[in-house]
């Protein structure tokens, strides 16, 4: 087993599925059915394959596992280098776990050009997995940008009524963020003559502090666009609201987490001085974004707005927690950040799928059109409640573990920070409970939701795994935290040593 390139297989297996879908011939109904089946089974197989990664992962080892390396552009000293550590392991698993669920969520929603949709979806999964496995900066960048192509097509072809501007905005904003990362990549390459991530991590701290700050800002450009910070936030609600069911879930559940992953993989280990100096900026932006996003969510609830936009903002609020946790540079904060991102990845997917189920039945996304759903759809109401309580961070769900750890870390960094971050939890309660009451309980004259059918087997198959994993993380988080301990410890060690060295150099210069 050891000799197998499991990472490459996991990454590229979806492409094999896409190629076989491309080969399907026959009448429209057959093609659609076969395309759906192939896509589902391919993604399930990919998930099983990625479980091998978890099984074979040695939590006590620092550094990278399942490494693969091959010459790619030898003239430029750039190689195909893959590998995972305790942090990326869970991002890979998150991707492979939710993709089949998202395909199930798109099962009936997508009725036209099914073949193309499934191909785009599988390509998206491959690129997404590649992002988290790449150990070469250029390779990472390639996967990172390659994600845009299928998502652009998915939003633009199968999206809602405003899909075209939403797709264009999504593409251009994201690209604008990532081209600065390209410049950072080039500066790294110029300084160290390689784009190999482990080498860059080992040597990055030797850069001068002004260079580190500029590079850090370049890397953060994508974060600013994704978190989102005014005035570059306008792409986000449109893209999420217009993306077809399963795709919005993937967008929010997985793609959004890449911003955090960039910090963990690049900014913090490679640019310790930059991270140290600019951490307050991250705190400020994260807190402002948290308040802004929560405010907008409350407004949408009050105005009986678009349910999908509501979910987009509601799930966004929690990314701020992840960012705060990372930059506290404490063991609890970092582990909390990983768990927060993992758990909100699952919760966003779950909430988007739930909204998709409502939309499929009632053909509307207006909060105002739903009421008393609990009468007609009790199973749905129960699942929705679990996801909502998890978002609120109720103990026993995945949300609690991450938020608790982050708050512990934030308190060590600054008690004010912990106070602000804690405030968001209260705001979250307002809009989550309010929305839940409006849609699920309140019996108003809004009659559109009478006669809705409860979940069918396909939908139960989406909801049950999500509920189980969310509870698993909440009740026995150690199976997840355990795997990340060594990596996080190593990251903090590296960070402190690098800072200390930089400090001693600064002292020696004086």
């Amino acid at each position: 087993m050891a000799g197998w390139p499991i990472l490459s297989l996991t990454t590229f297996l979806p492409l094999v599925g896409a190629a076989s879908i491309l080969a399907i011939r026959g009448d429209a109904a057959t093609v659609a059915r076969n395309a759906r089946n192939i896509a589902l089974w391919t993604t399930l197989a990919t998930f099983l394959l990625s479980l091998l990664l978890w099984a074979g992962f040695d939590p006590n080892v620092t550094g990278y596992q399942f490494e693969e390396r091959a010459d790619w552009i030898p003239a430029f000293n750039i190689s195909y280098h893959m590998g995972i550590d305790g942090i990326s392991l869970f991002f890979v698993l998150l991707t492979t776990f939710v993709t089949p669920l998202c395909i199930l969520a798109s099962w009936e929603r997508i009725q036209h050009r099914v073949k193309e949709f499934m191909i785009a979806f599988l390509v998206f999964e491959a690129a997404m997995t590649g992002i988290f496995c790449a150990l070469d900066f250029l390779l990472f960048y390639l996967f990172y940008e390659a994600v845009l192509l299928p998502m652009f097509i998915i939003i633009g072809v199968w999206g809602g009524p405003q899909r075209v501007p939403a797709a264009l905005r999504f593409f251009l904003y994201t690209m604008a963020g990532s081209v600065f990362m390209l410049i950072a990549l080039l500066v790294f390459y110029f300084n160290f003559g390689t784009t190999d991530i482990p080498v860059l991590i080992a040597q990055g701290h030797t850069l001068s502090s002004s260079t580190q700050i500029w590079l850090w800002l370049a890397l953060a450009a994508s974060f600013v666009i994704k978190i989102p910070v005014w005035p570059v936030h306008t792409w986000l609600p449109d893209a999420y609201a217009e993306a077809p069911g399963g795709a919005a879930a993937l967008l929010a559940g997985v793609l959004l987490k890449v911003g955090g992953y960039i910090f963990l993989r690049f900014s913090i280990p490679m640019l310790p001085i930059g991270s140290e100096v600019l951490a307050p900026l991250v705190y400020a932006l994260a807190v402002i974004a948290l308040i802004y996003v929560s405010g907008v969510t409350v407004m949408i609830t009050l105005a009986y707005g678009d349910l999908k936009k509501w979910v987009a903002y509601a799930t966004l609020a929690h990314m701020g927690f992840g960012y705060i946790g990372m930059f506290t540079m404490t063991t609890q904060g970092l582990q909390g950040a990983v768990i927060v991102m993992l758990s909100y990845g699952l919760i966003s997917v779950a909430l988007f799928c739930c909204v998709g189920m409502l939309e499929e039945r009632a053909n509307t996304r207006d909060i105002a059109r739903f009421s008393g759903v609990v009468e007609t759809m009790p199973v749905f109401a129960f699942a929705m409640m679990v996801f909502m309580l998890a978002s609120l961070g109720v103990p026993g769900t995945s949300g609690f573990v991450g938020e608790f750890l982050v708050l512990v870390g934030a308190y060590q960094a600054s008690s004010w920070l912990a106070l602000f971050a804690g405030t968001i939890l209260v705001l979250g309660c307002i809009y989550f409970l309010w929305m839940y009451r409006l849609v699920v309980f309140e019996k108003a004259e809004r009659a559109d939701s009478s006669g809705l059918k409860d979940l069918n087997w396909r939908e139960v198959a989406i909801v049950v795994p999500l509920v189980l994993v969310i509870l698993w993380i909440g009740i026995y988080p150690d199976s997840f935290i355990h795997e990340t301990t060594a990596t996080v410890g190593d990251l903090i060690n590296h960070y402190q040593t690098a800072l200390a060295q930089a400090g001693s150099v600064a002292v020696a210069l004086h």
Partner: protein
Amino acid sequence: MAEIPSILPATPEIFLACSALALLLLGVFKGDCATRLVSHLAAAALLVAAILVLSHSGARVFAFNGMFVVDGFGVFMKTLVLIGAAAVVMVGQGYAAQQRMNRFELPVLIVLSTVGMMMMISANDLMALYMGLETQSLALYVLAAFRRDTQTSTEAGLKYFVLGALSSGLLLFGASLIYGFTGTTNFDRIVAVLASAPKAEIGIVVGMVFMIAGLAFKVAAVPFHMWAPDVYEGSPTPVTAFFAAAPKVAAVALLLRVLIDPFGGLTDQWRQIITFMAVVSMVLGAVGAIQQTNIKRLLAYGSIGHVGYIFLGLAAGSEQGVRGILIYLAVYLVMTVGTFAVVLSMRHQGRPVENIAHFAGLSRTHPMMALVMALFMFSMAGIPPLAGFFGKFYVFLAAIEGHLYGLAVIGVLTSVIAAFYYLRIVKLMYFDETPVESIDQQNDGAVTVVLVGCGVFTALFFFFPVPIMSGAASAAASLFAG
């Protein structure tokens, strides 16, 4: 007296010139009914010339008393030009036959102008440079006006001729100044003169500026770009394809050789000019294209933007910069030929259509064509992992290595703006359902071959980048060694 062996390095040029004459004779005797045959033979001659070029060892060899040089750089560039020209001849034939411009002169003129381009690339003397440039340009003027019965084509020809003559004048004026101040026209001796003087005389710098202006006309860099959109739009599409592909590559090659070889010592002086032109070309290329509705005009602005990126690499003035440019050119050539092959196939009931609205719904009616076009558009926008990204990547790399951070930032920002209009084509093809007018099925074997070839190259370049990378690296090294 030139000895016989000393003309051997020019074998490909001589072969191609003789083939052009033979094809001309064949055409004259057989008449227009032989156009198809002449086209095929022309493409074959261009490919044979490419093989002859490639069979050169890559060592630096002179001919014609040092006026003509063959080196790794020349071999790389000539190969690009020849492949581009051959591909255009192949895809243009079917179009020409259908659009009542089925005349054997078209391929012959393309071959003749290619001979001029090869002379330009190998020029090692101001005289040889001018001769090559004019051989190329004269054929191009005729090509632009090839559909002399239409107003737009004659307008394009006239415009190109007047502005081309002006730019040749500028170039000649600059060359005469340089001759006056250095006393030589030979590149190697100019280098020696510049090296011996402690500070470059102002006359040489002024002459160099005029030469750069003249050459900037040929590559359509802002502010010498005005002709490009009109000429691109007015010329018959196969000719536009040729304009966008081969002469651009040849003119960039010439500019590189002039700036690196004789004026390598004046890098600080020309860098300001090139930097300025890079910035304005990138910005104008990106912004100007947004409003365009004609696909050929749009691609003209796109190519202005591409020149901006090429100048970005040139501004670095380093071997890495030139290497980046060579990779960029190779990729650009393939994308351009592929894109124009699609544009050539866009016909409604036999009539060519050029409005971008006609791309609407193409993914339903012509799924494969839409797919390759989408590949080219994404690639031109520089989205990884497609070939266009690598072109930009190495150019930006050189800019960063030259500490041109501001320039690199402007470059990446304009590439985002440029992505908008390339995406617009993809949007039309994939997101808009109803076609304005139905597009005919294309059943031209040559076009299909070129489309598949270019599409595969664009999509899979990341998989096997080594041949082009190492070729570009050794070509750049040979330019700097000289």
